[in-house]
């Protein structure tokens, strides 16, 4: 009889990094499907290229560095998909490929691989591309299925359209904002799909409500304070997609719940500040990256009192 001896616990939860990533992918499925439905096959190509480039970058890098190949944990698939969902559907295909490579190699692997990056890889890649090729990154296709009502709001240009944030359009029907009949990146337009993903992640407890609620809540409140329509502020642009899928990234947000509330609050505030007084019409990317950098600081100052740090009973 050959018995093993170890310290407990002797059985562990079935949940592991791979299953968590799989749950995120499942949560992203409605958004992905909606994006392809709205923007057509063109969007599917962008997403495919982004995912393949991400996984390939990770594989090649780990192989070259003679490290264990961990692409099976699906984290590169998630990163790639999110990079793709952050693209306008009509973008040249080398852009998502480059974005994924930057996300995986520059942001994730150079800092030590999964768990060690201090910024959200997909977010940084988007910021990088946005700064390098602003025109390509903001030439938004109008959804192929755009209804006539909204067409009027954006003019007749069917090749590219500015997001509602740029046009400051006020007369878009709520249903169009919710269903995604507006120009934007592949992933951010259909709010209903994003919300379905959020509900799934909350139900299977992959993420908690703290970051999304504080993020979106702060955007709504502050937008109202600066005099814009809070509903349009939330439902146009990338606030919801960012709050649900990018600000909730484990690696780059605080670990304590109180810290996550502060993080969400900070993201929301930065978005409104950038939108109202910055040069960019959209601020989600930079807001999240900015708060990513503050995460270690937030973690440091949001520790809980430990059990037993009380006076002795008489």
């Amino acid at each position: 009889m050959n018995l093993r001896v170890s310290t407990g616990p002797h059985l562990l939860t079935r949940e592991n990094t791979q299953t968590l990533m799989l749950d995120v992918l499942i949560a992203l499925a409605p958004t992905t499907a909606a994006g392809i439905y709205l923007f057509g096959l063109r969007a599917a190509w962008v997403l495919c290229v982004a995912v393949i480039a991400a996984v390939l970058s990770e594989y090649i890098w780990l192989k070259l560095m003679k490290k264990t190949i961990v692409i099976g944990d699906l984290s590169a698939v998630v990163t790639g998909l999110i990079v793709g969902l952050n693209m306008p559907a009509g973008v040249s295909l080398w852009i998502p490929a480059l974005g994924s490579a930057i996300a995986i190699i520059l942001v994730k692997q150079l800092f030590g691989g999964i768990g060690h990056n201090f910024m959200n890889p997909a977010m940084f890649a988007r910021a990088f591309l946005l700064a390098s090729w602003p025109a390509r990154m903001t030439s938004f296709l109008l959804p192929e299925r755009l209804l006539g009502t909204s067409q009027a709001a954006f003019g007749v240009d069917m090749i590219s359209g500015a997001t509602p944030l740029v046009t400051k359009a006020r007369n878009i029907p709520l249903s169009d904002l919710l269903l995604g009949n507006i120009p934007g990146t592949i992933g951010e337009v259909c709010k209903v799909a994003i919300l379905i993903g959020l509900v799934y992640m909350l139900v299977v407890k992959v993420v908690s409500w703290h970051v999304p609620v504080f993020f979106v809540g702060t955007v709504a409140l502050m937008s109202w304070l600066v005099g814009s329509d809070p509903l349009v502020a939330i439902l146009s642009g990338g606030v919801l997609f960012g709050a649900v899928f990018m600000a909730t990234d484990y690696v780059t947000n605080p670990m304590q719940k109180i810290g996550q509330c502060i993080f969400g609050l900070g993201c929301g505030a930065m978005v409104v500040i950038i939108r109202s007084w910055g040069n960019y019409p959209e601020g989600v990317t930079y807001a999240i990256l900015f708060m990513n950098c503050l995460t270690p600081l937030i973690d440091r100052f949001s520790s809980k009192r430990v059990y037993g740090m009380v006076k002795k009973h008489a």
Partner: protein
Amino acid sequence: MRKYSFRGGIHPLRDTHEGKELTRNKPIREVVAQVVRIPMDMHIGAPSEPIVKKGDRVLIGQKIAEAVGGIGVPVHASVSGTVTEVAAYQMMHKKPSMCITIENDGLEEWVQLAPLGDVETAAADKIIPAVKEAGICGMGGACFPTHIKMSPPAGKVVDTVLLNGAECETFLTADFRLMLEQPERVVNGLRAVMRAMGVKRGIICIEDNKPEAIQAITKAAAGREGVEVGTLKTKYPQGGEKQLIYSVLGREVPAGGLPMDAGVVVLNVGTAAAIADAVIEGKPLISRVTTISGAVAAPDNLLLRIGTLLKDAAEACGGYAKEPGKIFVGGSMTGVCAPNDEASISKANNGLVVFDEKDAQLPDESSCIRCGRCIDACPVWLNPYQMKRDYQLGKLDEMEKKLHVMECVLCGSCSYVCPARQYLTPAFKDAKDIITARRMKQ
């Protein structure tokens, strides 16, 4: 009904009802071993000193080893028969344990007993000495000598006795069966402790996944002075002393202190039953209920003599169902691994679980993804993520002074929930051992 709970904790093996289904409906069955090997260091404190030698005939309940030092307890023969060996064996402790091996002659002869009588009328000042003489120590796992717990130093006021029937550990159903089948023993034991200590309030605490036990205990407790039944939310480690006190009374045990520093004494329900036997019948602690589960042919709840070899306990349940890959005493969260199946059941062993080779596999550690589950799971509100980082960097002072690693109760919750399979609890156990050794030196 109000359900007591605490902040943090987990629900392990939720989809298999904490692994308890295997033995939940198995009534307690007595199995008398042919050979018992009784260790001298079953309790915390100095090992007892053998007073019998090879060839001596002993009777059940006869004292075979004397208590040594301030917190020692005596040890008694659990079968009648002949002492065949007094020698050291490797048990579950780090160092080998001195053991007295007795071959059972099957006559089941008891020594003369000196009962104190009914728990409500026995002389209150005789109860604590009787508990010590009966060799009783905490039967929930820690094995702290019970008479010490019952004797707070002058100036300490204990106002509540909590009986721990949470049995939050996975696989175990020994306490559940005991409460269900012999609730009056448990209640009598509680009353004996309350009277001995002059405490007016006693609460028997049971998790809500054991409604039958709650019902049985409630019935047995009816009309008994100062005895209440408290329902706990099913959650691990609800039965941890610190968590139980916080859940039920809203008090915290001060860091580095004992439950009595929070005005509480916590005893396992099995310990209470042993106390009842010691007072009412004068019987020392010679047997206990142990759940035998996992990869054995017929998992069961057995009433075993102290010193029964693990292999004999497994044999009584039809033997191993598969080639064992790991054997541990206790549940799967905090169970202590046995080096081989010739170790023996001690006073504290509420369970014996056998894993096959597949379940015994140890996971590969992967990179932490900072998901924060360990922080949410910690029942003493520590930061396991930060502690593990500091441990890997060798920053033990940081762990001790800033992160309070010494408050870690080694419950295993953080390791259980970690999706990256980080070895958190083993790291903290190691750090605690090193820091304790350092403190001893100073």
